[in-house]
């Protein structure tokens, strides 16, 4: 180590800041505020999660109550039709057309249910991510 390196090392070691109580107090206050904000955020998150879960359950119940049996019955019929069309179709083109027609008939109800489930899921996911 050269003389200059030693001088530099000594200069750095001597450059020490005196304790400033005001600095510590500022950080204490900042930490207290931070912890309070964290508690509020956690509470809001819990409430949001509960609300999203309740919305999802209610939505599922409403969809099932309103359309459940009808949708399930329609889906069964459409499946049977599709199956029949596949078995009896004379050509590949006709089979495909019949299948598409069959699926299209029940698609509105199936999409409605899917959209409700996706919307509920998205609300729940967003709440857990905040």
């Amino acid at each position, binding site marked *: 180590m050269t003389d*200059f390196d030693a001088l*530099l090392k000594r*200069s750095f070691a*001597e450059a*020490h800041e005196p304790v400033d109580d005001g*600095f*510590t107090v500022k*950080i204490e206050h900042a*930490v207290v505020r931070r*912890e309070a904000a964290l508690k509020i955020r956690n509470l809001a998150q819990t409430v949001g999660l509960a609300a999203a879960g309740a919305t999802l359950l209610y939505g599922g119940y409403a969809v099932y109550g309103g359309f459940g049996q009808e949708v399930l019955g329609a889906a069964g019929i459409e499946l049977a039709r599709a199956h029949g069309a596949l078995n009896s179709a004379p050509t590949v083109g006709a089979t495909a057309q019949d299948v598409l027609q069959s699926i299209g008939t029940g698609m509105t109800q199936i999409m409605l249910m899917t959209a409700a489930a996706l919307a509920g899921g998205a609300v729940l996911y967003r709440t857990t991510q905040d």
Partner: protein
Amino acid sequence: MAARGSLNLAEATEAALIVAAQARNQAAFSELVKRRQGWARALLRRMCQSHAEADDLAQEAFIKAWDKMSDLETPAAFPGWFRRIAVTTFLMAKRRQKAVFEEIDDASPIASEESSPEAAAGAKIDLEKALARLSDAERLCVTLNHGEGLSHGEIVEITGLPLGTVKSHVLRGTDKLRRLLEPQ
């Protein structure tokens, strides 16, 4: 903030304070801040040119440390861990200020301190004033190398700068300091 449990904060070891702070004991963290603030503020004052900015960054670094206390694996690692937070906070602040940190890669000529009145008169100026003559990048690398005793590799790890750049800044910064600090 009231002391929690039977921990006597004034007499507790730093390791005990760190463990208590990891358990979200705010009083223990305050005591830790009290003990470490001199070092942290000095470190940041050497990197920044403004004392007020350095103190703001030190405060920000301590608050980040409070948020991340659970990430600290062992109390013995605290100095290095906190230093990394302080350096990252400094670098982020510089980027926020749109400081030209890209100049790190440049080969800018040494500032013309030879022409300054002090240098011309061969006057010995103190470390702080000498550091103020360096570029941000040089000051950062020199402070970490000479002030904190970090190797070039450790500086690369903390700052994310290329090894060649770090070496170059340490060399150039040290050379400038030599000319400014050594009595003629």
